[in-house]
């Protein structure tokens, strides 16, 4: 049985320089109240691991605009001109990773794998500096696992066991980063009594979730 925290209390747990995995794809499925609380707290030097940095004023874009981000590991930052500008000015450093590789690296980190072998990126800049392994005569890049201090989840339904379900395209990175955060904080559209989410509808078992945000007022 988990308690539920006010967003400000959850944000208090995040120290300067922490690494955060944040769910969402162009801010769809991102935990907006949690992000607002981090902006309000103003803790900086963050490393963000996410698919993208959304756009100014939305989702992760709010952390970028607030100047709290030092390093980004993402697949795409092209739709946020502020991220681009801060990267060019050197305020933010950025590791760009193919989307399918990024999600597998996170999954590997969360599931205790030492990495995965993928053909994606072979022969491109993505290969630079990477180990290559040959399996059955074919070359593959060794892509290493990713973990983070925190995973911040945007869910649809939660219960007080911490079970989570997601809706439509708001799944995206959320169910996977829930495996790879040392501390996992979930913000859900609604929190329902234990037993209401059918076992087959649970996409993130409660064991992975450390804290819920209280319901929005």
């Amino acid at each position, binding site marked *: 049985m988990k308690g539920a925290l006010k967003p400000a209390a959850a944000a208090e747990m995040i120290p300067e320089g922490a690494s955060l995995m944040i769910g969402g*794809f*162009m*801010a*769809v*499925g991102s935990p907006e109240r949690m992000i607002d609380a981090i902006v309000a707290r103003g803790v900086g030097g963050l490393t963000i691991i996410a*698919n*993208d940095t959304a*756009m100014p004023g939305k989702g992760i874009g709010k952390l970028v605009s607030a100047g709290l981000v030092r390093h980004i590991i*993402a*697949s*795409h*930052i*092209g*739709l946020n001109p502020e991220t*681009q500008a801060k*990267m060019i000015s050197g305020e933010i450093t*950025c590791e*760009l990773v*193919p*989307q*399918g*590789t990024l*999600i*597998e690296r996170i*999954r590997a980190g969360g599931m205790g794998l030492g990495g995965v072998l*993928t*053909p*994606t*990126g*072979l*022969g*491109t*800049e*993505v290969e630079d500096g990477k180990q290559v392994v040959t399996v059955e005569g074919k070359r593959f890049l060794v892509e290493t696992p990713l973990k983070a201090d925190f995973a911040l989840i945007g869910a*649809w339904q939660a219960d007080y066991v911490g079970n989570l379900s*997601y*809706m*439509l*395209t*708001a*799944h*995206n*990175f*959320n*169910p*996977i980063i829930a495996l790879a955060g040392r501390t996992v904080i979930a913000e859900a559209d609604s929190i329902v009594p234990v037993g209401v989410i059918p076992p087959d509808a649970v*996409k993130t078992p409660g064991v992975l979730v450390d804290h819920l945000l209280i319901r929005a007022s």
Partner: protein
Amino acid sequence: MDAKELIARRVAREVRPGSLVNLGIGLPSMVANFVPAGLGVFFQAENGVIGLGARPPEGMEDRHLTDAGGGFVTAVPGAASIDSAMSFGLIRGGHLDMTVLGGLQVDEAGHLANWKVPGKMVPGMGGAMDLVTGAARVIVAMQHAAKGQSKIVPKLTLPLTALRRVDLIVTDLAVIEPTDAGLVLREHAPGVTLDEIIAATEATLIIQGDVPEMMLI
């Protein structure tokens, strides 16, 4: 008909009944408008839905259901939600029958560059590297030239997207098929002569017998 519509109408003819198709952001997304209903085609958006439908009527948008560009969409009957690991598992695993992507350059080897202009535009590769590596069929839909410069070149000068040879190039002037022998000119756009195509193309084109006019949907 403008150039983009021409391209989209020609690409729509490549879509096979009952197939699973991914359309990139921008021009490629227009292809969906011209694929006949009743063909049983399912569109995948890599952010997490199979069975992408048209934009919903005003007021019926749902923030949990968007395409990869963040635009509101609907879900057709028989749609499925998938997380990013499954989405890219389908892509990289060859379960996606076809992807239509924009391009910055294609060269005589059939190699695509579409994710980076060094020093100018570094948006990240998003899903492009996985899509080109894994999709059963890769179609590049792009303008033949940009700012007077041919986008079909002898050898890429921009960073490679993937080692895999693309299957077809559809432009406002021509349909071109990369083969072992090089780029074969398959069709010309209505009202465009072969000489005009050759003049607009920096790469060498192979012309075998009659080159028919594009058939459009």
